[in-house]
């Protein structure tokens, strides 16, 4: 379970997150929505070790995860796909994938993971030896997600996977995310500007506004909530 208690993060003098508290049960897909600058990316970056928290508590499976190095957290099953299609363009698709599994001792299991990724995203399988910069936007996002799967994640942090993608591709990606959450029993924090798409596949939702939690609840409840609809769903 992911437990967040009174988490606060500051960028210099600016409070990015203010006393955030929420829980995500194992196996749940939580959508984190909110306007730009609400602190969604900061939240993920703090949980993955890229940013430092000012105070508060964050636990994954009763492990304290604040103030740890990102590389260490990966070994505890936390995988963060950062904003902007975090693939390395100069490396091939295959190398990008293998990157995620380099830390794993068991090479056989790593190879199995690669199989799973290729099954989930066949397009990647076709392009294994191509450089990542020859991929389309959607394919890059698949690659980024694929690489995080290679890290044997238990908690998956996804930062705006739909950014800059065509609607059809977005649907595919979201479906893939839903599928692999269920298939692998992952716990997922899905940060999205595309609130509708995120809430459609999520179990629960968290609404952030200016660094604080504005609302939480089941995804369906939030979808029906008039205030949320007005602010984030556009109708």
């Amino acid at each position, binding site marked *: 379970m992911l437990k967040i208690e009174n988490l606060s993060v500051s960028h210099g003098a600016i409070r990015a997150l203010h006393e955030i508290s929420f829980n995500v049960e194992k196996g749940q897909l939580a959508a984190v929505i909110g306007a730009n600058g609400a602190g969604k990316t900061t939240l993920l970056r703090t949980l*993955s070790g890229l940013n430092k928290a000012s105070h508060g508590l964050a636990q994954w499976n009763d492990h304290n995860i604040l103030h740890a190095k990102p590389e260490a957290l990966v070994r505890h099953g936390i995988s963060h796909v950062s904003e902007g299609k975090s693939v390395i363009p100069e490396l091939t698709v295959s190398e990008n994938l293998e990157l995620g599994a380099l830390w794993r001792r068991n090479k056989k299991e790593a190879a199995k993971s690669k199989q799973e990724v290729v099954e989930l995203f066949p397009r990647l399988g076709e392009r294994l030896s191509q450089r990542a910069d020859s991929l389309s936007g959607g394919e890059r996002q698949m690659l980024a997600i694929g690489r995080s799967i290679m890290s044997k994640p238990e908690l998956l942090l996804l930062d705006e996977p739909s950014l800059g993608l065509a609607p059809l591709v977005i649907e595919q990606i979201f479906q893939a995310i839903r599928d692999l959450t269920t298939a692998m029993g992952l716990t997922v924090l899905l940060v999205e500007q595309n609130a509708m798409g995120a809430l459609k596949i999520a179990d629960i939702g968290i609404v952030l506004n200016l660094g604080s939690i504005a609302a939480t609840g089941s995804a369906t409840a939030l979808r029906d909530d008039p205030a949320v609809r007005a602010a984030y769903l556009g109708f």
Partner: protein
Amino acid sequence: MFNFINTLLIGITAGSIYSLMAIAIVLVWRSTRVVNFAAGGLALASSFVGAAVLETTGSFWVALPLAMIAGALFSAFIEYFFLRPLLKRSGGKGEEIFLPIIATLGLLGIIKAILNYIYGDRVGSLPPPLSDKGFIVSGQSIALSPMRILILGTVLVLMAFLTLIFQRTNLGLSLRASSFAPEISRLAGIRVDLIRTVGWAISGAAGATAGILQTTNGSGSIAPESFEFSLLLVFGFVAAVIGGIESLIGAVVGGLTLGIVLAIILMYVGGSLVFFAAFLILILVLLLRPHGIIGVKGGRRA
């Protein structure tokens, strides 16, 4: 005709040594975004180690690897104790590049001062292990000697080795990934800090080899204020810039280009213009390709 071939051979030999030094500089640049002037000092120190080993064991073939190991250790030491704290502190635009560069210059000065103190007037001796008498071809001695072949061979082997590591091993993948995109690599579980130290270690070993080869190709003796080492440092850096400081291939291309052109100038124009010629080559290349011959616009992304 012979003259020209000889000039080429001399140039390629010298150039390949500059390439090694350039590789040392490029490795550090790519992994840390710092121009490591201290690399010259480390090469010097490692060469002294080599000379000492040679004196004790009498074998060049033991001295070279040990010097490389020394170079690797020195370099890793510097990365860990000097660079890491330095990078934590330097911030702000503009100073980003300047301060670390000037800090490595300061380090170079300190290394030289220490070596001067330890060795003073004494000189380390690294005579070439193989004959440097040229082979005789149709009655004329050409500039290809066993020693030259050794130098060229060593550089070739090292480059092949490095390419192998970088392209085909997990370590190489980590090295490449960490230098292209450190943040993404961290999120993939790569111990980027450790990898960076390894990168510096490899750089140190390359520099040590360059230092030893430069000495054996030259006067055979090392002194802290040795002209050959100033040459190595300056030309190594210039070679890296000519080739494009973002790529290892660039380092090789830059080194060979510099070596050959300088040899030609040396032969046909005269000695004292060599340095100015180096400057001209550099500025000409950069005018046409501001990022070096193999100009990769490169740079890191998160």
